[in-house]
């Protein structure tokens, strides 16, 4: 534990800590471009120069390890002059096309220019070296070589994390640029991360390109709903529309990366949404008020249970639901409807692609949670069998996915049930067949927790109000239960989670506070 | 001629009065009250009591009902908060009693027999004025006291803090 002093603040840091990391721990920000906590250290941008006592020259903070008695200063005039010089050098050939650059607003060059630069360019625009702009280099990435400051983060990412190495430096001197090898485009499932790690606008996202200026976006901490890995993400939105998902650092789950499939998950929250409660009487869908829709559903369930016994009612839960919602669904099924026929399925249509890094075969964020909360895959099989036998009169179904059945199969299966109520976010085969459609919020419009495949319970938070008249799943379930005569007193997901942690052994002792932003593993999990 | 006009205005007066009593909203009642008062004023004119007819309109329609409407607006009870009128036994009894009263007045009216007077314009401004300031001067002066006390009473009652 060497003791050292930085800007007059004394501290002790673990052995082998670099000055930059140590300063970061203390809360002093040292400007840097090439340094990235999850990549190897290159030390080629020279932005992180600091003055270290007894060293004749300035040292780069990212690659100088703290030693006993070291005295570091990052706030001297000498440092400032050096950093300004480095920045000016980087900007010499920069095209300064911020108005059309997507990075504007979260750009390292802009930020440090405002902090250290503010100089006039000594180079005329005509004299600048022009490189190729707008290059589609495959994956989700557009390359603008002119804006590059040659920090090599992308090169290192492709060598060290994906180990595919598609990019490299080419040319020399002020003509040097990054690019792919001719004709060999990016070919891995993690290309989106390049846009994140690029400190400038050289690598930008094809998907997010020109959609929105970043300063309009608000962010909320969330969990990727794309697979059971449960990557920590930040959801960026503006005015009720999700614009992009970015990974959030969680060393226990996804470090700071996420896959390209997960990045596109936001589209599901924007497209073909169910917006109003719909009652389908005699085959004709009619928009209804929430009260009507819930009242009708509750009535039909009670009717079925009274006339044909509780066995004629079934609940099919969804692994897309949060732990809280699954808990309430289970409670509704077993305590109020008193049925034995309930279950869920984690199977989805598609090939279930997986790799050994972040992508998991189970494409549902909360299959583990559903199992821990008492839903079982066999239950789904039982329910499907009972439905096809015509024993089920009223069915409550969450989501649009019924295993890997095709749309036609779903339709013929559900046509055997006289009343289907669906709680779902997007339009699909089930919602088209349902007699009562209860639209629910997307993952960015509600809060809750998912349990990932490793049994880690992680929170996702509400970003904005549900679109249209869509309702929060918890409110829908509570409303349904109240109309079925239950006396539920839940107010928001936190109160449900409290009840859940008291009721379930796996979740015992957990609270939203103890979950924090990184989550906690369930009892008995890895 | 007088009979036709009498029937016309009498019918208006009675119809208006019935409407006053049966309307749910006091504003409607007040407007029908004006109608009744006008009809009564017309009846006065029919009986050559021109002064009283004018006074009827000025005082009643011009002031008293305006006061009523003023209060209706001031109080402004929304339509659904108006008192619920229910038919009860006591009320029915009251209506029956009123009916009997009318019947009785009809019987009494038929017995009315007095010789007709000579002066034709007993209701003109001059005649009423002369009577008012000679024979009935004291009563007239006392009326002013009554009105004064009513004014003071009204102000005292309606004041927010006494």
């Amino acid at each position, binding site marked *: 534990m060497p003791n050292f002093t930085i800007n007059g603040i004394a501290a002790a840091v673990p052995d082998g800590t670099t000055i930059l990391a140590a300063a970061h721990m203390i809360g002093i920000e040292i400007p840097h471009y090439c340094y990235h906590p999850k990549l190897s250290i290159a030390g080629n941008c020279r932005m992180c120069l600091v003055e270290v006592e007894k060293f004749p020259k300035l040292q780069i903070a990212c690659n100088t390890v703290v030693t006993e008695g070291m005295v570091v200063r990052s706030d001297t005039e000498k440092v400032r002059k050096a950093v300004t010089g480095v920045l000016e050098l980087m900007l010499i050939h920069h095209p300064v096309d911020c*108005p*059309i650059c997507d990075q504007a607003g979260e750009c390292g060059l802009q930020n440090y220019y405002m902090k250290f630069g503010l100089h006039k360019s000594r180079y005329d625009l005509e004299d600048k070296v022009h490189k190729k*702009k707008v290059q589609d280099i495959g994956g989700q990435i557009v390359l603008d070589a002119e804006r590059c400051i040659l920090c090599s983060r992308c090169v290192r990412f492709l060598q060290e994390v994906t180990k595919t190495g598609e990019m490299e430096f080419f040319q020399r001197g002020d003509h040097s640029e990054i690019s792919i090898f001719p004709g060999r485009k990016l070919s891995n499932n993690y290309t989106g991360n390049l846009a994140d790690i690029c400190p400038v606008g050289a690598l930008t996202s094809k998907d997010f390109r*020109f959609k929105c200026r970043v300063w*309009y976006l608000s962010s909320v901490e969330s969990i990727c709903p794309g697979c059971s890995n449960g990557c920590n993400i930040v959801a960026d939105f503006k005015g009720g529309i999700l614009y992009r998902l970015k990974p959030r650092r969680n060393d226990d789950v996804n470090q700071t990366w996420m896959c390209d499939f997960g990045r596109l998950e936001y589209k599901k929250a924007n497209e073909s949404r169910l917006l109003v409660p719909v009652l389908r009487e005699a085959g004709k869908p009619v928009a209804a008020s929430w009260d009507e829709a819930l009242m009708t559903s509750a009535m039909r369930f009670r009717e079925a249970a009274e006339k044909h016994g509780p066995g004629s009612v079934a609940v099919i839960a969804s692994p897309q639901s949060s732990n809280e919602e699954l808990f309430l669904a289970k409670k509704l099924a077993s305590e109020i409807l008193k049925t034995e026929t309930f279950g869920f399925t984690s199977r989805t249509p598609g090939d279930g692609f997986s790799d050994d890094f972040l992508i998991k075969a189970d494409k549902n964020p909360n299959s583990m949670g559903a199992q821990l909360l008492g839903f079982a895959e066999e239950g789904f099989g039982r329910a499907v069998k009972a439905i096809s036998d015509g024993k089920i009169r009223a069915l409550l179904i969450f989501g649009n996915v019924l295993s890997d059945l095709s749309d036609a199969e779903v339709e013929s299966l559900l046509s055997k049930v006289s009343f289907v109520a669906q709680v779902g976010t997007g339009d699909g085969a089930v919602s088209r067949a349902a007699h009562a459609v209860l639209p629910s919020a997307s993952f960015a419009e509600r809060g809750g927790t998912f349990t990932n495949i490793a049994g880690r319970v992680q929170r996702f938070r509400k970003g904005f109000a549900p679109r249209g008249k869509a309702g929060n799943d918890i409110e829908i379930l509570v409303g349904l239960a109240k109309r079925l005569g239950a006396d539920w007193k839940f107010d928001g997901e936190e109160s449900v989670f409290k009840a859940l942690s008291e009721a379930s052994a796996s979740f015992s002792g957990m609270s939203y506070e103890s979950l924090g932003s990184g989550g906690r593993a369930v009892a008995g999990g890895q | 001629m007088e009979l036709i006009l009498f029937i016309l205005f009498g019918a208006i007066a009675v119809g208006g009065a019935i409407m006053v009593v049966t309307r749910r909203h006091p504003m409607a009642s007040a407007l029908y009250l004006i109608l009744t008062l006008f009809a009564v004023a017309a009846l006065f004119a029919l009986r050559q009591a021109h002064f009283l007819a004018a006074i009827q309109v000025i005082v009643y329609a011009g002031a008293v009902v305006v006061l009523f409407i003023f209060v209706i607006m001031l109080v402004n009870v929304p339509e659904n908060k108006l008192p619920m009128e229910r038919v009860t036994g006591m009320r029915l009894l009251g209506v029956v009693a009123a009916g009997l009263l009318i019947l009785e007045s009809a019987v009494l009216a038929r017995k009315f027999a007095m010789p007709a007077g000579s002066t034709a314009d007993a209701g003109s401004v001059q005649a009423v004025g002369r009577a008012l300031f000679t024979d009935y001067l004291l009563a007239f002066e006392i009326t002013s006291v009554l009105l004064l006390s009513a004014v003071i009473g009204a102000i005292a009652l309606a004041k927010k803090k006494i």
Partner: protein
Amino acid sequence: MTIGVKKVARPEQMSFGESLYLLEIMKGLAVTMGHFLHNIAHNKEIPTIEYPEVRRTMPARFRGCHRLMKRPDGSPRCVACYMCATACPAKCITIVAGESPDPAVEKYPVRFDIDMLRCVFCGQCVEACPCDAIRMDTGWHTPPEDTREKLIYMIDKLLEK
């Protein structure tokens, strides 16, 4: 035209003649009748400017209706950087950016709407524009329209001014 402030001494106590009002009202009537007769006799001297036919010359820095500038080839100079929309205190500018077919331009406004009903004519958009693409030098007041929709100026209208 100079604007002077004339201090009028207000007497603490009105004189008897003044508190009667009648005389003062007469004086006032005389003043207004003086104006009335003078204006009838000297009809031409009434300082009204009859607007659509006669117009005041606008000062050089007058901020009128917006216009969008063009490049020599006729395409809008705007690159849809959203700077004006960001600077706008009234949030009256709506831009939808798109990929330009010209790689030298890269980004261009698919839509560029200004809601003239919301605009407060502060000129912040002109200040903010990095490309000198928006100006308010038309010298025009926003002309009246009969629907609100017509007062949302689309890019075509803004370019042709």
